[in-house]
């Protein structure tokens, strides 16, 4: 209905309503109806306008709210996007900087993720590992490049089947360039899996190195005791069935400690390496040369027919080792002692053989070193006795079983005692007096000689302090004492404690001390002499080049060894030597002492030859400290030696 007809109709209704029962139109009523209709229309218009205005306002408000919300959400989204991007960046950085190659596959065996390291390991380019590429295609590519061995399809079937059972699939592959790659495939929920590829070449090498180090000596790269025992065990087991004979040679360098102490550890190490090389050259390929600690070596000599083959090898080794070494400008000569045990005679198991070879070595050393000994069944007892002595020696110093005896030296011109030599004695509570020749070498070997020497110095000074002022005391110094840095303070201390004047102390050294002719030793000797002490050369003439040593140090006294005196007065050569020595000493202003003068003729002879002093039974045996005091009493008349 159009607007016009609506209005017409409304107006018609209004006229009808305004019509009175008489049929006339009540104009007033009609007017009010028309006005009311206008008012209604106007009100409706206002309502509509208001409602629309409200709605617009509300919608606008809502829009603003929404815009704000959208703004907020957009900002949040952007922040999250940035965060995600950052996260992705970190993720990428993390996986691409892994030391392992990393791959992830979906349940269809298609690549999801692949990092850079994987490409590097197999030399693949990125297009070979795009997400979505099938594993089998990647494997075929690698097979073509030589980094995958086997059938890609078969491997894939095996892999998928194993992973489906929830198992990790691990394998180690070796690439043509010898790199070793460890591959671990780990199943994930949902049917995919993660694979890691790690280059373990270095680790493997390190493991091998560690395994080698565990069984080899780092210095010489010879097998160590562990590998020696293993090899020996293997040989013994294998040989037991065939009655095979083998020898275990146990070596120990003689006086190696001296090399280390005097020339330093680097020279000692060089010496050990050189010795290792020489030992290798002596042994057969089937033999095992091992370093089992310090200066100890061992050789397993296999497939021998008789012990004489072991003896031949031992001799070869002794000769080979003995040849001089030129190390950092030092010429070094060492000897070796060798103990030999033969299987199966001397033992059928590793421990027993090694123990017996060691015991044989002990025997060789006791025999004077530089030689070899076979194991003998009674060695055990001897070794035990030796061990017992070692323990007893240590105890003896603690409990005071040592004592000093003194042998007087007679000045031939003044006809009086000018000096007494302190001589060490061990009064064993059960065995009685034990001679120095038995215990001094042992004390040297076990390192007891230094504290023992100190005790001797202190005690000798104390004793001498009670003697007449013109009587000196002579104390022997061992090479070990001279090497020891504490000698000077020990001497000074001994003098100070006793109150003995330094000029009354004579220190006797042997050629062996001068053989270790180092700056330290010479400096010590000079220092001692500066302090007023007299330095004597003991046992002169027994060494190789005694005369030359006289040039190296200004000795105060030369003690001519008893071996020259014992030949007097008949042996011409002894006579010539004594004469030469006294002559030389006289021209060098040294006094001379003839040791071991036992007879009156000998006495007369050395007097004629020009010796200054004599020492020997002809005048006096060594006497205990208490006795020597009485012997030296000034009122005691000196026994005239006719």
């Amino acid at each position, binding site marked *: 209905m159009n607007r016009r007809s609506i209005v017409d109709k409304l107006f018609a209704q209004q006229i009808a309503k305004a019509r009175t029962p008489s049929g006339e139109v009540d104009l007033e009523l009609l007017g009010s109806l028309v006005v009311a209709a206008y008012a209604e229309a106007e009100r409706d218009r206002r*309502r509509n306008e208001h409602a629309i205005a409200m*709605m617009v306002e509300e919608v606008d408000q809502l829009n603003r709210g929404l815009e704000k919300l959208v703004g907020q959400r957009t900002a949040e989204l952007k922040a999250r996007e940035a965060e995600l991007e950052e996260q992705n960046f970190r993720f990428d950085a993390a996986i691409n900087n892994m030391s392992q190659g990393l791959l992830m596959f979906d349940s269809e065996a298609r690549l999801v993720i692949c990092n850079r390291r994987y490409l590097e390991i197999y030399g693949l380019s990125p297009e070979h590992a795009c997400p979505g590429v099938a594993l089998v295609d990647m494997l075929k590519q690698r097979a073509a490049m030589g980094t995958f061995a086997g059938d890609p399809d078969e491997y894939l079937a095996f892999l998928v089947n194993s992973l489906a059972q929830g198992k990790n699939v691990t394998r180690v592959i070796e690439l043509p360039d010898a790199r070793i790659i460890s591959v671990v495939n780990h199943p994930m929920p949902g049917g995919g899996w993660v694979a890691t590829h790690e280059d373990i070449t270095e680790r493997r090498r390190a493991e091998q190195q560690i395994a080698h180090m565990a069984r080899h000596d780092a210095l010489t790269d010879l097998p160590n005791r562990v590998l020696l025992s293993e090899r020996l065990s293997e040989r013994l087991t294998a040989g037991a069935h065939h009655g095979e004979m083998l020898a275990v040679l146990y070596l120990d360098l003689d006086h190696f400690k001296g090399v280390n102490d005097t020339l330093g550890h680097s020279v000692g190490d060089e010496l050990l390496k050189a010795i290792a090389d020489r030992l290798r050259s002596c042994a057969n390929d089937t033999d095992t040369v091992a370093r089992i600690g310090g200066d100890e070596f061992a050789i397993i000599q296999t497939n021998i027919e008789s012990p004489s083959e072991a003896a031949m090898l031992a001799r070869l080794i002794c000769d080979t080792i003995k040849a001089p070494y030129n190390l950092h400008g030092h010429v070094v000569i060492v000897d070796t002692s060798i103990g030999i045990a033969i299987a199966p005679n001397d033992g059928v198991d590793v421990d027993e053989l090694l123990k017996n070879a060691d015991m044989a070595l002990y025997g060789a050393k006791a025999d004077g070193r530089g030689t070899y000994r076979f194991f003998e069944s009674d060695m055990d007892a001897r070794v035990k006795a030796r061990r017992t002595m070692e323990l007893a020696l240590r105890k003896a110093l603690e409990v005071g079983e040592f004592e000093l005896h003194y042998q007087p030296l007679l000045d031939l011109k003044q006809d009086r005692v000018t000096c007494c030599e302190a001589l060490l004695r061990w009064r064993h509570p059960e065995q009685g007096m034990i001679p120095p020749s038995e215990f001094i070498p042992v004390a040297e070997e076990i390192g007891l000689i230094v504290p023992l020497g100190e005790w001797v110095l202190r005690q000798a000074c104390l004793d001498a302090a009670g003697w007449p002022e013109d009587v000196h005391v002579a104390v022997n110094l061992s090479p070990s004492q001279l090497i020891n840095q504490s000698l000077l303070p020990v001497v000074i201390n001994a003098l100070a404690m006793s109150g003995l004047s330094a000029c009354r102390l004579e220190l006797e050294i042997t050629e062996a001390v001068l053989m270790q002719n180092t700056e330290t030793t010479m400096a010590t000797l000079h220092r001692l002499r500066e302090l007023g002490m007299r330095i004597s050369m003991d046992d002169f003439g027994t060494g190789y080049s005694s005369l030359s040593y006289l040039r190296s140090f200004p000795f105060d006294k030369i003690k001519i060894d008893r071996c020259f005196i014992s030949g007097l007065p008949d042996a011409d050569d002894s006579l010539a030597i004594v004469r030469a020595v006294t002559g030389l000493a006289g021209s060098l202003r040294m006094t001379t002492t003839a040791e071991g003068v036992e007879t009156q003729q000998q006495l007369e002879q050395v007097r004629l030859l020009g010796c200054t002093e004599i020492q020997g039974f002809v005048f006096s045996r060594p006497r205990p400290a208490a006795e020597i005091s009485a012997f030296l009493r000034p009122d005691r008349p000196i026994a005239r030696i006719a």
Partner: protein
Amino acid sequence: MRASQLHWSGPAGWMDENSHPQPVDLVLYFGTRAALACGARYRELRAMFPRAHLLGCSTGGQIRGTDVSDDEIAAVALQFDATRVKLVAHAVADIGRSRACGEDIGRSLVADDLAGIFILSDGLKVNGAQLVAGVAGIIGDDIPLTGGLAGDGAAFAETLVGADGAPQPGMVGAVGFYGKAIRIGHGSAGGWDPFGPRRRVTHAHGNILLALDGQPALDLYERYLGEEDIKGLPGTALLFPLIIQDPERPEHEVVRTIVGINRDDRSLIFAGDVPEGWMARLMRGNFDNLAAGAAEAARQADAGLGNDIAGDAVSVMVSCIGRRLLLGQRITDEVEAAVNEMRAMTHLGFFSYGEISPHAVSGCCELHNQTMTVTALSEAA
């Protein structure tokens, strides 16, 4: 079926439009509260139709033919050839018993040959939605339940229903139609236009709406009404009905109208439930669209009668008071539009506080607001 229309007015008293068929089975009457409250009109009708069931209610205006009046009583007397009718009356003491009342009515009327129910209820003291749900719960959705809630003009003070008795507040009366001959057509349509944003019912108890989108409901209405119409509350709230929608059944929309306000808690009281969580939108009427809605309801009702009717047909139009407030003098537009769509010769009706009719889409009987609801009655040949 024979139908004869009659009406009453103050100066003229009852006027027969036709000679009444006797005996009359059912008289439906609609008048202002002022006209009905004294009970005299009921007694006059009873005297005229001693054997008929008399069912009527107070209104917000009556429809007779195409006329709309405020001071008359419109009535129709019906005589059925092959249809039995049964009337029940029920007093609702407490609004919370609305559903139970509906169930009682349903139980009283339900029968194998029940063909339909026309129900009139107090418009203020009964929760119409609960009442309808109660009846429908007993009789099922296949049997049409139509009618409306009594009105009280724009006053919203008291409504009356009379069912074989003088009209009283708090009453519900319902008449059941039985047998195969009766033909009942029904239609319901609004024609309102939703506008403005969709809002969520964030706080409500039953038919009391406290908040939309967290804002007090009355605030929203007042803002939209403007100062001029705020004075006319709660009547003027009818200008903006609310269309509500269950978000889980978005196609199922129901229009709710306001029957009261509470300035203390800033709430609005509706003629039916406004469930929390449902979506709501304000609606606004456009004169032409409202009339078109009425025409649509009439078309549906007329079609529902079928083509095998004989004798008279009557249409009972129940239109919302809100429509009348909005349309003013042009209210006749919608009545005419409806009448023009129907074959029935006899038309009457009233402006209500709620309309009852099956939902146009779901077919479920429901309380509607702000609609034109048409019930057409006739008998088969």
